């Protein structure tokens, strides 16, 4: 068969043009879409792990970064972190190549349907390990785990997402996060997470204007000009209004926590607030996790929190009318 036709694109989302293929397609499997977005973040982490400084020994390298997480933690916690740091120090290439490989494995494992559950399981174990050894338990033991800085640890959200997105047959109603664990458990997880964020915004150095100022000021170096400009504004704002902003963030977190119990329209409003606030924090405070300065292993908590919030977005009947068979793949409309 000779095919001269070369109009080879994805099916239309809107428009009045003919769409015979689209009309026959099953509804989109939203849980699968979220799994793939999570896989994309893991793939980004894997590629970030291949940066030159990650293979470097010493204070400017990966082992130095790991050892830096020990400071301020209780002795027994710090000891485990420096133990891991010393292993990386002695074998920087081997350990870093292994770390990157695990993250590639998780990303591609999530994509392949037969290995999705194994990959998500591995991602939970790996995320907890990274949280402890790589993020110093998120700074919780130091009293510096403010959500502004990524507390209680960006990688913890990877683990939470893995649980919520565990493959299962069923409906994406009333939101994707409830498909596997059920509505009550999903709501419980939501309340615990946002409640924790509210508490962490207020305890320890989380409400200290100077600490919040330093949080941004320390990230400033190496950032592109436009982000450094935003940083200066953020640092000044924190120095003058740090405590007020911490209290405001805590209030927002409490409102968002309650939002999941409200009618769908109000839930959407609280989710938009959460998304806007944490998108702003991700850019103006976390600086995309420091990725743009070339010294980060992940994009910090901003990106996974956005995914987490979107997983609770109320779904409507028309878009997700029924059960999705895990074994029945559905085509993605957006072929990016």
């Amino acid at each position, binding site marked *: 068969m000779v095919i001269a036709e070369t109009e080879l694109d994805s099916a239309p989302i809107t428009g009045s043009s003919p769409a015979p293929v689209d009309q026959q397609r099953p509804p989109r499997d939203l849980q699968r879409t979220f799994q793939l977005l999570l896989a994309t973040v893991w793939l980004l982490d894997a590629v970030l792990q291949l940066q030159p400084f990650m293979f470097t020994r010493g204070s400017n390298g990966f082992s130095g970064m790991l050892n830096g997480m020990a400071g301020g933690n209780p002795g027994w916690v710090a000891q485990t972190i420096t133990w891991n740091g010393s292993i990386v120090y002695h074998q920087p290439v081997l350990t870093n190549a292994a770390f990157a490989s695990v993250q590639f494995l998780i990303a591609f494992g999530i994509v392949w349907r037969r290995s999705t559950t194994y990959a998500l399981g591995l991602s939970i174990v790996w995320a907890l390990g990274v949280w402890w050894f790589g993020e110093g338990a998120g700074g919780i033991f130091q009293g510096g785990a403010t959500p502004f800085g990524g507390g209680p640890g960006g990688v913890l959200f990877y683990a939470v997402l893995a649980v919520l997105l565990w493959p299962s047959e069923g409906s994406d109603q009333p939101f994707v996060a409830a498909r596997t664990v059920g509505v009550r458990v999903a709501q419980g997880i939501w309340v615990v997470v946002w409640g924790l964020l509210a508490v962490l915004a207020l305890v320890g150095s989380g409400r200290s204007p100077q600490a919040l100022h330093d949080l941004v000021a320390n990230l400033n170096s190496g*950032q592109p000009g436009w982000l450094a400009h935003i940083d200066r504004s953020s640092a000044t704002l924190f120095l003058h209004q740090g405590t007020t902003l911490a209290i405001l963030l805590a209030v927002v977190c409490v409102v968002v926590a309650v939002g999941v119990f409200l009618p769908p329209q109000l839930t959407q409003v609280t989710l938009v607030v959460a998304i806007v606030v944490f998108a702003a924090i991700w850019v103006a405070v976390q600086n995309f996790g420091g990725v743009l300065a*070339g010294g980060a292993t992940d994009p910090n908590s901003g990106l996974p929190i956005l995914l987490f919030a979107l997983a609770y977005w109320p779904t409507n009947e028309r878009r997700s009318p029924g059960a999705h068979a895990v074994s029945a793949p559905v085509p993605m409309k957006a*072929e990016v």
Partner: protein
Amino acid sequence: MGTPAWLYYLFGALMLVVAGYCFVLLVLSVATHRPAGRDVDISHTLMGIAMAGMFVPSWAFGPRALWELAFAVLLVWFAVRSMQSIQRFGLHVPHALVHAVMSFAMILMYWFPAGLVSGSGSMDMSMAGRPDGAHLDAGLGLLLALVFLGSAIFTLASPNKGASHHGTHLPAYAMSAAGTGSPASPHGGPDGTTGEVEAMVAIPWLEDLSHVVMCIGMAFMLILMV
């Protein structure tokens, strides 16, 4: 110590493999008079060679201006194809768009080259930075890297195998998308010796894999440039 040299060589070799594979696809499509996916084969061949030269500077050749011109032409081509697709099928994300973005990224990489130097110092990149000190905006680099990584993941997950080269509006893929059959090769059935070679080479999942490798290679290079 920085990124070990073998990693750059590994990525460089992978880029050449992709370029070689897509060149074979290109030759087959010309031999069999089947234009489907030919533009993608051309772009991946050129990108593979160019990217290999970026990872391993000693493998680079040809004037930079010529490479920039080639990718500018590809950018315009894929941009026009994207617009044509939207005009014909309504508002959607066209398959050609990601290839337009990839061409755009290649131009940026030539405009704002990163100086890659290995730990041993043996890999001074021939394109070691611009004299005026200008560099790629890190935010744009990260955004492009995310797009390519997303494209890699969603391509791997797509049930429409080969769609990264041929899109999903090709009849074979349309049938597959509608759940009426498994994806058939968009190159059609074997025809003599060429057909046998084609049947061995033009495998939809392999075509997707070449796109995935290219996306990850480009994302890694962009991250290195950040």
